[in-house]
């Protein structure tokens, strides 16, 4: 039914059985178009990483499927690159070795020289030319994450999955890396699914911001469309007339509605997550919702 979507999460659930079995989330639906940059925001422990791991194929859902490019995913794939929160570099390999490992995994028949040239191209792309023979222990946190990005990009994936990639970095480094990720993704038209805690990061990078309520039993509450122009600059975000409305809407969700959403919205249809457009005056729900009961809520701010 969602064949127009490049990625389609169709009714997935994750349960942990045990003495006290818990449902992290269930009946979760989300579609993403090709070339779209989607950020998921939600509180710690709500299940964001679990969703990402299911998308990556590292974890299997208890129910439901994820369809990517018309195919249900059955495990990890070179088409879906993951940028890990903890960078996950192999410490016994150099920068070049780490990227080359990915390159030679994708193109098994390439010879050394070709693998090296390809890897170097991506090391250069993330601004690490000259450091290719360093080991991860000799790099700063920001540089390590750059290597992780180079490794993910080097296999030219169809989708990039990023789990709070910049959360361990200082503000300055984070800003530079955001700029670079945005530049690369806009240039290459990457489809990106990214988890973040940082509202400004989401506003800067994402086309759509998915708001996830607190777990257990987390749901996707809203999909907020980013009203800012595609050619936005990080330093100019706050000058945009809709910036504060957008920011307030998200923060309001994180502060209060993420806790109360499920109880206050009994008729929430997880298959039709409301799409919210931030207007000049107030946010309005524009799609797929019996709007009567919920419009005031989305507009509460």
């Amino acid at each position: 039914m969602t064949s127009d979507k490049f990625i389609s999460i169709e009714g997935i659930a994750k349960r942990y059985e045990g003495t006290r079995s818990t449902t992290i989330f269930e009946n979760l639906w989300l579609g993403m178009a090709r070339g779209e940059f989607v950020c998921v925001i939600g509180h710690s422990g709500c299940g964001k990483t679990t969703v990402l791991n299911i998308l990556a194929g590292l974890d299997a859902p208890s129910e439901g499927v994820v369809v990517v490019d018309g195919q249900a995913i059955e495990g990890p794939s070179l088409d879906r690159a993951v940028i890990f929160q903890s960078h996950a570099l192999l410490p016994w390999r150099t920068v070049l070795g780490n990227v080359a490992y990915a390159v030679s995994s994708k193109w098994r028949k390439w010879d050394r020289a070709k693998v090296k040239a390809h890897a170097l191209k991506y090391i250069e792309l993330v601004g690490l030319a000259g450091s290719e023979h360093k080991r991860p222990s000799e790099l700063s946190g920001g540089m390590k994450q750059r290597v992780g990005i180079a490794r993910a990009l080097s296999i030219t994936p169809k989708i990039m999955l990023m789990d709070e990639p910049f959360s361990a970095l200082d503000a300055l480094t984070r800003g530079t890396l955001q700029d670079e990720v945005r530049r690369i993704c806009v240039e290459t038209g990457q489809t990106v699914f990214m988890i973040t805690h940082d509202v400004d990061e989401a506003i800067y990078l994402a086309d759509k911001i998915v708001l996830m309520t607190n777990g257990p039993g987390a749901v996707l509450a809203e999909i907020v469309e980013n009203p800012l122009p595609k050619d936005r600059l990080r330093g100019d975000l706050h000058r945009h007339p809709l910036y504060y409305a957008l920011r307030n809407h998200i923060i309001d969700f994180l502060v209060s509605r993420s806790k109360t959403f499920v109880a206050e919205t009994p008729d929430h249809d997880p298959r039709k997550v409301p799409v919210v457009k931030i207007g000049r005056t107030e946010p309005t729900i524009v799609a797929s919702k019996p709007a009567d009961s919920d419009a005031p809520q989305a507009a509460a701010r």
Partner: protein
Amino acid sequence: MTTSLRLRAAVVSIVLLAVFLGAWHIATRSTGAAANMSPEYAKLMGMTATQGKSAMPGPLDVGAKLWEHLKRPFYDNGPNDKGLGIQLAYSIGRVMLGYLIAVAIAIPLGFLIGMSPLISKALDPFIQILKPISPLAWMPLALYTIKDSSLSAIFVIFICSVWPMLINTAFGVASVRKEWINVARTLEVGNFRRAFTVILPAAAPTILTGMRISIGIAWLVIVAAEMLVGGTGIGYFVWNEWNNLSITNVIIAILLIGVVGMVLDQLLARVSRLVTFPE
């Protein structure tokens, strides 16, 4: 700063050695030791005792004898009189053989145990029971079944060095960081390649620690094993020289056992440094 620390430590080491040698020399030089001895014992101990010289050789005696040995380490005058080099070579050969067999079995098996929780649980009781058995307790059984003293010694070396390597390999493999495994999984790296490119390098430091413990134990055990089985080897040499009442040779053998043990340990320490990665 560090060089001066090293220098000062070396000076202290030399001073300690000098003090020890000096004390040893003075203690063994001469006394009325003969007076306190029963006549039979004095007779047994021979000239040195009856002449009032200590039965314990002094450092100069040991040094002179050591020099003699070092000059011709590989002479062979029949079964009871071989150069120290030959005896040590026998011992090292046995240790290496038993140890390498242990490596060949412990590392693959440890991999299996580390990768498979089922095998790990299934083998655990056996390992727990076999591990604390003194290697020498196997000796009679080995002699009875293998019927060859030298092979029995090798078996004993094998059985004592296999456990630390097995356990460390299993532990190292089982505790490879999940994120490194996930990197390999997202890159669709096959099981075989993953074992060699991720798990082995990640577990190598732990495995090497096990190998280092094992070689130490193997070297400890070979001396005892050779005392039991006899024939050749440094352990047999010690026992033989004790029967000859040549305390000088016993002391020299002790010294050499220590030196060889240290060299073996240092070799593995060096390999260990090669595979250790900073995080």
